[in-house]
């Protein structure tokens, strides 16, 4: 079953719509979907007051529900929060907390996404074809329970603190990353194909961060361990270029691995005297 959602107007107020979830839409008729409750600013409304729902039966025999949202929904928060199955395709920009605590299924965004995408996710896949905001995969304020599984792929750039407090799973960023990528990381893998701002891996205890581009600086609380010829990102993806391997963060007695491409970072060559 495929559910198409079309915004009925330009959305200006913040909207909380955790009901946009394949698990909730499963087996419902358009009229039933439009009756689901959402919040627009401080007013409770029906989903049908903001979106028009259409159902198109697919030839796909699988029972998975596919939700396709057409248009800019950057004001809509918590889409796909806690989803377990199915797929959400967003043809436009998406709002905060996309796929928060999702356990399975897939979300694809053909646009940009605001902060806390994939926050605290436990499984499934989020693929963002534009840029992602701050706190990608990171927990909400005050929590230390970051990603515990699943995969996030971003084809653009990401903001601050991507993968903060991460325990498991993988975050692949094919653009640049802001500062504090992998802050207080306890496990899992973060791959940044392009450049990375400073303080990458600050306070990390375990886990792996791979930076193929230029890194602004390495924290003084990391020590150099050696030079590696290649690094495996995940099954079937290996980056073959020399990498400096740093271990840290010393301040947390950490043994996290920070790989930084040697060729793109001549300013780190002074570390070689410690090898």
């Amino acid at each position, binding site marked *: 079953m495929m559910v198409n959602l079309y915004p009925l107007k330009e959305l200006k107020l913040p909207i909380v719509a955790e009901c946009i979830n394949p698990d909730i839409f499963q087996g419902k008729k358009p009229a039933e979907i439009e009756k689901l409750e959402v919040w627009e600013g*401080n007013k409770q409304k029906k989903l049908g007051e903001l979106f028009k729902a259409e159902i198109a039966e697919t030839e796909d025999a699988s029972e998975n529900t596919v939700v396709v949202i057409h248009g800019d929904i950057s004001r809509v928060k918590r889409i796909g929060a806690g989803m377990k199955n199915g797929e959400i395709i967003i043809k436009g920009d998406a709002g905060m907390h996309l796929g928060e605590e999702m356990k399975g299924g897939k979300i694809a965004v053909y646009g940009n996404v605001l*902060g*806390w995408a994939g926050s605290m996710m436990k499984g499934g896949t989020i693929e963002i074809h534009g840029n992602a905001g701050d706190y990608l995969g990171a927990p909400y304020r*005050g929590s230390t329970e970051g990603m515990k599984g699943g995969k996030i792929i971003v084809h653009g750039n990401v903001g601050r603190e991507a993968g903060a407090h991460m325990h498991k799973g993988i975050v692949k960023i094919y653009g640049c990353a802001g*500062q504090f990528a992998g802050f207080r990381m306890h496990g899992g893998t973060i791959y940044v194909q392009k450049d990375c701002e400073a*303080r990458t891996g600050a306070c990390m205890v375990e886990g792996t961060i791979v930076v193929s581009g230029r890194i602004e600086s390495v*924290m*003084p*609380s990391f020590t150099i361990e050696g030079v590696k010829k290649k690094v495996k990102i995940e099954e079937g993806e290996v980056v073959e270029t020399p990498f400096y391997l740093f271990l840290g963060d010393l*301040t947390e007695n950490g043994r996290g691995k920070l790989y930084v491409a040697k060729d793109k970072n001549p300013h780190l060559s002074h570390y070689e005297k410690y090898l």
Partner: protein
Amino acid sequence: MPVVKAVTCPVCGSLCDDIELTIENGRIVKVKNGCAMCEAKFLGYCCEHRVLKPMIRKDGELVKTSLKEAIRRAAEILAEANYPVLYGWSNTSCEATSVGIELAEEVGGVIDNTSVVCHGPSILSIQDVGIPSCTLGQIRHRADLIVYWGSNPWSAHPRHIERYTSFSEGRFEKSAWRGYVTKIKALVGRKKIQSAIKRLVLKKPSQISTHLEPTFVSPIMRKGRKLIVIDVRRTKTAEMADFFVQVEPNKDYELLQAFRALIRDQELAVDKVAGVPVEYLEDVADAMVSCDFGALFFGLGLTMSGAKLRNIDAALSLVRDLNMRTKFIIMPMRGHFNVTGANTVSTWQTGYPYAVDFSLGYPRYNPGETSVVDVLLRKESDAALIVASDPVSNFPHKAAEHLAENPLIVIDPHMNVTAQMADVLIPSAFVGIEAAGTAYRMDHVPIPLKKVVNPPRGILPDEEILRRILAEIRKIKKKQEAA
């Protein structure tokens, strides 16, 4: 002429409560014990910028109106709004903030205080790490090592050093004032001699040094109360310090983490951190570990630069690590006189200290999402109430622009920039001068504020104005429900 003693100064977070005011014909004519900022407020509060009549905007112009009409219009704006913001609260009493939170809940709005642009990052990190702290009284009597990081109390909290830290006479620690005077005299003498040698012997004009190297002013390991200043520039406070570390701008996080590693006796694989040689850092780390009672005060130089909240995360972690070796506490240098009170009251009533969103009917908190600056930058709000603050002068340009586009209600004693943009402007009495109340000092000690003179005729305190708006909103909502 009557003299009112033990008045609390409503300017900065130090809340000095030893001010003496002389009153003549219902006006303050003399201020004793106060700093320059304190004198300026007590003597200049009734200046030409004072608003004396409520105003509403008609045909693009602010025109005078009755208080009843202004309150009715303000209530209408807030009752109709779908996502109003209520901002300010740090320059008013806890009692007014308490009513403000009730109002925010009633209208389903976002209530935020000025922490969002000052020590908001500190609060986020305190929630992550925790904070070992104490009262300023304990520091005055016991602290033998004071560290000011990214703050310049000489200018921003002028009596902080004199009342609570290095120059205060404690029960167990003596004031470092005499030592400071001797040091200044020696420095002046040395500068004169150097200048004379250069002019007479070398025949070159004296040059001002702008190097980034840290400077020993006196031996760091000497006995008695010591002062360390860490900042990006040599401030007046830095001039007084026993040891000054000049950190490269936006590199505080690296320096803090380096201190953490050194305190854990780990070796650093670099020669310099943030432009400071590691050997100097080792001396400072030794001084921190070997003190009996240390106190680290940090200001906006730490909260609003480079790593922002993570600077504070590292500073709190540093103090946590230091407490494994000695006694150390940490305290933010709060700016507005009752910003701590705004956080405290908000925490009592909602569970969260700032950036609280009531739009779903219950309090939600996620700075970055529910903080007023971010709400305005995303252009989500559709009405605003500003109490005792001037965000148009301080917020990012785009945020201020959206704020001015909203129907705007301002409650303030002065005609500031935000008030000039208002659709409804209600003048209020100065808390701590014309109205009594409670404020929280930076160490979370509540201190009463006195009413020393009467406000101008017809001017009410913030609390009373807010209560009247709240009552009016409830009337409107009752009518709507009945209809």
